[in-house]
């Protein structure tokens, strides 16, 4: 199994053509020769030797447009794109509230978080299977100060007998992984090496 994981790291992630993405069976029928074969994860290095069990019909051949590094993905991040701390969203600051009791209502959250400023938007998503809350909510404030005050006041407190956690939803740069010494992002187009 370990050998297999290593093999999977040795694949070519650069594609000439977005259209490849789903063309295993080339049903588009334009007869062009498509590139295919041993692509594994779009982000190769995360399948490390530590991954012991792999399952599924797609293993080793997943295609993805998300992997194409040359495509431009729009973002709101500042130039340089490597900061710390929270990232502003287009109309304000978004917080994630986790640990929300499943039978909480949108109004419970709205009331609690309106203490710190005008709640511009609130998503309290429901679990599709049960119709109860999925356990999280997203709240938008117009100003950084309101959002930060809400985090400080509400993180770790009780809402309807359940401890909730409140944090920024977006960051200005990659999460620092303390345990991971391998580079988080590929910096060159050369295929990853097998260590």
């Amino acid at each position, binding site marked *: 199994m370990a050998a297999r994981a290593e093999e999977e790291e040795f694949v070519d992630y650069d594609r000439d053509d977005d259209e490849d993405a*789903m063309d295993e069976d080339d*049903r588009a029928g334009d007869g062009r020769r498509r590139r295919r074969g041993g692509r594994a*994860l*779009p*982000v190769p290095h*995360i399948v*490390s030797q*530590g*991954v*012991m*069990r*792999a*399952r*599924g*019909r*797609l293993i080793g051949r*997943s295609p*993805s*447009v*998300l992997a194409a590094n040359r495509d431009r*993905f*729009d*973002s*709101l991040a500042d130039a340089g794109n490597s*900061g710390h*701390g*929270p990232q502003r969203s*287009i*109309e304000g600051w*978004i917080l*994630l509230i*986790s640990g929300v009791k499943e039978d909480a209502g949108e109004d419970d959250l709205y009331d609690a978080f309106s203490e710190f400023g005008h709640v511009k*938007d609130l*998503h309290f*998503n429901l679990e*599709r*299977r049960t119709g109860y809350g*999925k*356990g*999280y909510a*997203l709240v938008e404030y117009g100003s950084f100060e309101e959002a*930060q005050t809400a*985090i*400080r006041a509400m*993180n770790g407190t009780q809402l309807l007998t359940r401890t909730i*956690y409140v*944090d*920024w*939803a*977006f*960051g*200005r*740069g*990659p*999460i*620092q*992984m*303390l345990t*991971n010494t391998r580079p988080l*992002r590929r910096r060159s187009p050369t295929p990853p090496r097998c260590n």
Partner: protein
Amino acid sequence: MAASGAGGDDAGGSGGGAGGEFYLRYYVGHKGKFGHEFLEFEFRPDGKLRYANNSNYKNDTMIRKEVFVSPSVLREARRIIQESEIMKEDDNNWPEPDRVGRQELEIVMGNEHISFTTSKIGSLVDVQTSKDPEGLRIFYYLVQDLKCFVFSLINLHFKIKPIQS
């Protein structure tokens, strides 16, 4: 700007007992008279959330968005997956992708890597009549919950309404 308050409580892989490795990718799409239409998103281990949506209907262009999410958001995605128990399933007996479309769900969590593929699922009837209704039901609901989470994140951050593919 200091990541003060709750921002500091995240030592990478806390919660859920699983190690630091985490990756999630979901794709749904098909090829038809409007070309290759699809929706795809992924969470990378460093927090990068990528979202792409291509609908060629009326010459719509492809939407490509990316944003770094906080460790808390990643942890929440991980929790949703963990609670679904999808990592115990297998796609062996699920309907094969067909003309109508294809779905793919790829997750690395802890020391496991699943990479499932199946057809589009129209409703629970498709689930019930399949050869693995229990496993497919888990997939069916998990995908909806994950989409819901990602749509909210993208919608709030960019103020666009993701289109259901």
